[in-house]
Structures are given as structure tokens and as C-alpha cells.
């Protein structure tokens, strides 16, 4: 056996390997180890084989069809050329050069009704790959064979919980969120021991009576209060802080039954990785009545701010504003309105609290509120390019005619939204990719996703000077980060609702994106040599 091992180490071939903590702390290059590319969620790859100058010769090298699946939303991770790709309740290991399947694992649901999506990805650590299922299992699989190492139940599916987010792994802890999905269930964020699957801590964003923040909930409204953790957050290794966005309060549209700020919904919270204890929070939208989940991915950047080097957190929020915070304390530093149609507030005060206008909550007869409940931004991954110093994200200009009702909470996973909005997809409705200057939020350029009425997929930036962007109607596009000019495009022929990523194997840089039921791998054109 030893001889085989020696040979394996000598070989120039890619081989699955132990992913170390140190590797997890590096920016994405050859490997892509996190849903968001790195702990800081910058999604900036150090790869530079594909450049502004040569991206025009990018070609589709392979396509992998995910059987029986549509509307894929996950981001693959890649370790030494092996790609791990999830769909709801299944995971595939693929050869990253060819798209050929190595193994797959399909989780068997106890009940067919538990088959709901979406699912957004896997995480890797040592020689294991981790993912969750729609019926709330967290799996650890052997990365080489796909064998199950352990599985644990993380939520009660019958109550309405689901687990769509890709786990994040830091210092041997698997961090997983939950989606009560607008069903009046209180969210939580869990840490599990990567080795054994043992629950280490659970953080509840909704405080219980007597706990700090509980005064922000009228009566017993905290019992069915929401606060999802349905998207993967960020991690600051230096501060040992998880930095996570928290979802909407329940019921979504009827705020009358939950008077108060409804902490810690619509917040970004910083949690000690070791204990799960909250160190600070910042609330974007106190007492939200428009389902503006604040789960948009927070990007962690160290940069000068007003002459001082600061540890910053930036986020384009669903409520229509871009925020700059100090991530050591959660202190509000700056905001900028990016949603031009925004009509619910007279701006943000010096503490970061919106000056909410009277009468801008949903009513029984309807109020036109901008942004709509879809939000001015959403779960589409943003990116930060240190070479330009700009933040890039997918923005939506649009309004909704918002109504509320008196829907009551019902146990069993039923919706508890108490209203909704009719999306006003008129001439003002517009999806675009935008570049903002990091610390001021000043718009540097905007490129409209022509023909898009849905947000579509997110972004990845690269050292080669290319931003990749997946558009809802199926166009996969390369943009110039300096100008927003389209450099290349490819019609995948299917709807894109996923984030692109990039990796390198066998000396070639690949870019991959999921589109409806397929994964596409792209690389620069090279003439194929005929077989001998």
C-alpha cells in the first residue's frame, strides 16, 4: 500500500487531497473551496490566464447534465480539479477538466413532500465534503468515494424547516443555516464538529423574553418571528467572527402584529466562532414589512476609510441601500442609495437607521413600495475587485403594489406571510450589474441585463481583469471591470440562477456556471490534437 501512496504523491496528476485550514484561508486560485470563494466572500480569483484581452476566445469545453433537475442554484467547489456539485438532495463529484462523473450520492427522502429546493452548494475540509438536504440532514461524505461518513438531523422538516445554504467550514466547525421559508418559524445557525457531526452550538437570531433585543417584539410575537439564515455568510479569521445576514421577520407583510424593531431580523450579526455568542449587530431595516431579508452576502475588505485603514464590511441590501460598516464593532460608517426608485424612506440617519416615511407599509388595499419584495438586491453573489477597488453586484430597479392581510400562524410549515406584493414589471423594471466605489458607494458604471426580468445569477471577478456574470435568460457574459463593457458572451440556452466560479486544473483556467439543469465548463480555445 505504501508503494501506491508514494506513486500517488509522485504523479503529476490531480488527486483528491486533504484540504487544510490554511488552504481554506487563501483567496481562490487553482481551487475554489467556498461557496463565496473565500472567507471574506470577495469572489475574487487570483487566476489570470483568462484576461480582458483573450476572453473573446473562451469556449465551452464540457457540459454536465444533472438528471431530473431544473433551476439549479448551487456553486460548485473544486479541489485539485475535482468538482463537487449539488442539486437538492444529491451531490456529484466530477472531473473538472471534462465534466465526467466520478461518483454521485442521492439522499433518499422520507417523504416525497419534503422534496423542495433550492440547494446552493457544498463545503470541503480535509478529505470530506459536506452538504445539507431539503429535509434537514447535514452529510459528511468521503471526498474520494462518496461514502457517507456521518449524517445528522439539523431541523424538523415537518415543522417546515429546510436547509438550502452551502455550509461554511472554519477551524473544524461546519456552519449551517436554515430556512423556515416565510413560515413563521424561528431561524437558527448551527455549528457542528466536522469530525463527528456533534452539535457544538446553536445561535437563535430571535431573542427569547428577557434576552437583549426581546423588547423589540410586541407580546408573544417573538414565537413565530422568522429570522432565517438561508444564505452562506462570511468569516473573519483574525477576529474569529462569523459575519452572517439574517432574514425577514414573520409575518412578512403584516407588521401590526409584531410592533417594534424585531431584532435581530434584517441584521448582519457577528458571532464568535467558538461559542456562537453575538458580538455585535447592525440592523438595516428595523420593523421590515416588505420581506427584505438582509442575507445579502457581506464582503469583508480591509481598506482606507477617511484616511484610516479600517476593517470594513460592505453590503448591498435588499432595501435599496449600500452600506459600509466597521466589522470590528458593527459601527455604521456610510450608506448610499443605489435603488433610484426607492420611496419608503427619506434616507439613512447618522446611526444607520432609515428615516422611514409614514404610510409606506403594506395595507389592505395596497401601497406602491419600491423596492418590491424581491428587493433591490438579493442572494446573487456580489464580488470585490482589489485592482479597481470597486464592489460589483446585481441590482434590480422595481416596485411592488404591496398588500397585507390578517393571516394567522398555523403549525406544520404553512406560509405565514400575511400579504404580498404584485410586482410592477413596467418600463421602470430593470436588472443590471453595477460597480460601486468601495467606501463611498458612488456608482462607477451600470450595465443593464437587457431582456432580464428576473435577477438571474451573480458575479465572480478575476485577476485577469474579467468579471463573469450569469443572466437570467441564459446569457453567460464576461464584463470589463473598469467599464462594464461586454467582452464575451455565450448563450447557455437555459435560465441561469446560479453564481459563476473559476478554477484551474492541468494548467488551464476554467470558468463554470450552472444553467437550469446543466453545468457548463469554459476555457480558452486550444486546437485539439488528433488521436494517435
Amino acid at each position, binding site marked *: *500500500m505504501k508503494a*501506491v*501512496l508514494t*506513486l*500517488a504523491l*509522485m*504523479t*503529476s*496528476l*490531480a*488527486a*483528491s*487531497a486533504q484540504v487544510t485550514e490554511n488552504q481554506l484561508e487563501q483567496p481562490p486560485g487553482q481551487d475554489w473551496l467556498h461557496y463565496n470563494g473565500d472567507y471574506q466572500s470577495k469572489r475574487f480569483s487570483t487566476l489570470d490566464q483568462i484576461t480582458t484581452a483573450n476572453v473573446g476566445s473562451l469556449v465551452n469545453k464540457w457540459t454536465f447534465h444533472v438528471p431530473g433537475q431544473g433551476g439549479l442554484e448551487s456553486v460548485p467547489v473544486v479541489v*485539485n*480539479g*475535482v468538482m463537487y456539485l449539488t442539486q437538492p438532495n444529491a451531490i456529484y*463529484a466530477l*472531473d*473538472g*477538466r*471534462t465534466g*465526467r*462523473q*466520478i*461518483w454521485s450520492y442521492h439522499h*433518499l427522502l*422520507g417523504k416525497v413532500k419534503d422534496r423542495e429546493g433550492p440547494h446552493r452548494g457544498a463545503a470541503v475540509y480535509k*478529505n470530506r465534503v459536506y452538504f445539507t438536504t431539503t429535509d434537514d440532514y447535514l452529510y*459528511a461524505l*468521503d*471526498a*474520494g*468515494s*462518496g*461514502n*457517507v*461518513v*456521518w*449524517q445528522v438531523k439539523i431541523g424538523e422538516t415537518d415543522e417546515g424547516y429546510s436547509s438550502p445554504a452551502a455550509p461554511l467550514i472554519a477551524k473544524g466547525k461546519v456552519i449551517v443555516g436554515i430556512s423556515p421559508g416565510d413560515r413563521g418559524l424561528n431561524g437558527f445557525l448551527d455549528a457542528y464538529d466536522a469530525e463527528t457531526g456533534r452539535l457544538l452550538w446553536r445561535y437563535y437570531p430571535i431573542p427569547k423574553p428577557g434576552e437583549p433585543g426581546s423588547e423589540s417584539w410586541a407580546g408573544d410575537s417573538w414565537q413565530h418571528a422568522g429570522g432565517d439564515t438561508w444564505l452562506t455568510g462570511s468569516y473573519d479569521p483574525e477576529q474569529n467572527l462569523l459575519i452572517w445576514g439574517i432574514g425577514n421577520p414573520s409575518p412578512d407583510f403584516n407588521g401590526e402584529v409584531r410592533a417594534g424593531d424585531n431584532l435581530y431580523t434584517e441584521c448582519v450579526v457577528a458571532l464568535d466562532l467558538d461559542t456562537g455568542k453575538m458580538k455585535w449587530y447592525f440592523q438595516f431595516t428595523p420593523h421590515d414589512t416588505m420581506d427584505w431579508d438582509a442575507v445579502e452576502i457581506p464582503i469583508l475588505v480591509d481598506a482606507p476609510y477617511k484616511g484610516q485603514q479600517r476593517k470594513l464590511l460592505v453590503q448591498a441590501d435588499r432595501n435599496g441601500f449600500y452600506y459600509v460598516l466597521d466589522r470590528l464593532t458593527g459601527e455604521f460608517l456610510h450608506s448610499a442609495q443605489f435603488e433610484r426608485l426607492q420611496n419608503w424612506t427619506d434616507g439613512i440617519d447618522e446611526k444607520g437607521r432609515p428615516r422611514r416615511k409614514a404610510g409606506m407599509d403594506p395595507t389592505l388595499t395596497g401601497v406602491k413600495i419600491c423596492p418590491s419584495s424581491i428587493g433591490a438586491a438579493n442572494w446573487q453573489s456580489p464580488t470585490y475587485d482589489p485592482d479597481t477597488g470597486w464592489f460589483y453586484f446585481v441590482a434590480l430597479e422595481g416596485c411592488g403594489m404591496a398588500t397585507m392581510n390578517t393571516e394567522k400562524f398555523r403549525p406544520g410549515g404553512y406560509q405565514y406571510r400575511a400579504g404580498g406584493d404584485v410586482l410592477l414589471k413596467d418600463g421602470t423594471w430593470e436588472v443590471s450589474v453595477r460597480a460601486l466605489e468601495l467606501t463611498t458607494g458612488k456608482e462607477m458604471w451600470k450595465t443593464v441585463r437587457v431582456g432580464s426580468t428576473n435577477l438571474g445569477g451573480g458575479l465572480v471577478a478575476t485577476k485577469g481583469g474579467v468579471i463573469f456574470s450569469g443572466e437570467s435568460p441564459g446569457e453567460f457574459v464576461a464584463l470589463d471591470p473598469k467599464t462594464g463593457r461586454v467582452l464575451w458572451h455565450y448563450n447557455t440556452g437555459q435560465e441561469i440562477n446560479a453564481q459563476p466560479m473559476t478554477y484551474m*486544473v*492541468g494548467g488551464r483556467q476554467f470558468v463554470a456556471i450552472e444553467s437550469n439543469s446543466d453545468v457548463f465548463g469554459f476555457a480558452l480555445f486550444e486546437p485539439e*490534437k488528433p*488521436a494517435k
Partner: protein
Amino acid sequence: MKWRVAAYLLAFEVLLTAKGQAPPKNPVGRGPEVVAAGRAVFNQTCTACHGVDGGEGERAPALVGDRRFFRLSEGALYGTIEDGIPGTAMVAMGKSMDDKDVWRIVVFIRAMRGSASDTDVAGNVDHGKEIFAGKGGCVKCHAIQGKGGTIGPDLSNVGAQMTLNHLRDSLVTATPIAPGYKPITVVLKNGETVKGIAKNEDAFSLQVLDYDDRLHLIDKADVQREDIGTQSLMPHDYDKQLTKDELQDLLAMLAKQTRDGGRKRIDGDGEVGR
């Protein structure tokens, strides 16, 4: 189409219970002696159509093998035998058979078709674990609940995935190599050698899992020679390597292996998807 079949079977179940009677209850038990008795009755009564041991008959479907949408619940099987299937050659046997014999046949059919974990298997499970880890050498290639080798299929759920017969066959007869488990030795043009199992292969690339759980992504253009084994790495002579009791204990242990705390893969008519 699945839902139509399921709907038909559901309707059939409703029909059975629509007589206003409580669902029939098995009065004979489910142990190995009942299976044996059921087999005897079956082979005296049903073989003209269904063949010996339900293998295949002249005028009716085989009752074993891999088919979807088998009737599996005891109630559905009992009702079918008792009342027949209208419009087919399956006649109502209820009037001509002792009720307990009908139930014995039901238990026999379920034992043939049900997953191994559904079947009452005699044997010492704890000793089976020892055989798995020791004399049988199984753990070198197979893992159960995360412990064991990776070169063979994960057996954590094998009791729910296989029938008992299939499980026994895989230990004592040469079976085709499962896809993704072909033994392979690849010699590359640079002189390196990789040994393991071919997880996948086409004319252009090859994906190998070596004996140290490492994946190798290989371009066919880099391959000097590849030798694909024609024999499975899985020994198929456990009836010779082990004593009769040891083999039975191993079978009993494997039959118990289910994921999710014994949640059944097959739990009723129309849901069978083996």
C-alpha cells in the same frame, strides 16, 4: 406515468377496505418458519402460473426480481390472493384456501421481495460484525457508517437496498462488476503507475480512485497502457471462506444495515423503486 400506477394501486387499496371491514391482520407471524411454511404452500398452489418459488411461470408474472410497483404491503398482497385481480387470470383463492395459508404465502412473497432489512434473518449480528471486520476482510474495501475502506460500495444502507437473496448471491456467486468499481492499473507515458478502480472512463479521459482514497484525473493521451480487470475485486466464495454459521451471521448483520435508523426504502405499494 408513475402517478397513474400509484393512483391505481391506491384505488385498489381503497377498494379492498371499502367493504367496510377493518384492514386484515396477519395472524401467523413473520419468522423464518412462517416463510418456510409459506414457501411450501406456495409451491403446492401457485406454481402453475407463477413458477416454482415465484421465479417465472407460464401464465403469470414472476413474483421476484427487480420490478417497480410491486404490491408489497401485507394487506395488498393478502387482498390480491384472497379476492384475485378482476379482469386477469388471477383468481380469488380465498374460498379454496385456509386463511392462515393465504397469510403464510403473503409472508413468503414479502420475504422474497422485501429488502433484506424487512426480512427476519436468523443469525448472530454481533458475530457478523466480527466477521465483517476480521475473518471476512470486508472492512478493507467496504465502509459501514463511515468506517471502512472506500474501494468497494458503501454498505451502510445495504439492508434496505438489496433483497436477502441478492445479498446472499453477492457473497457466494460471481456477479458482474458494478459500474464504477472495475479494478484498473494504468501505466502512464511518463512511467508512473496508478492502481485502483475506474470510477468512469471514455475514449478521452479516465477517473481512478486509488487504494488510498485518492482520485486521479487522467488524460487518455497520457496513458501508455491500461489493464482493466475482468474479475470483480469482491470475493465470491464466502461459502468456502466462512463456515455456514459464520456466513449466516454475516448475512444477518448486513441485512440489518440501514441508514436513517432503519427508515425503510420500500414502505408500500407503488413506492418500490429498486
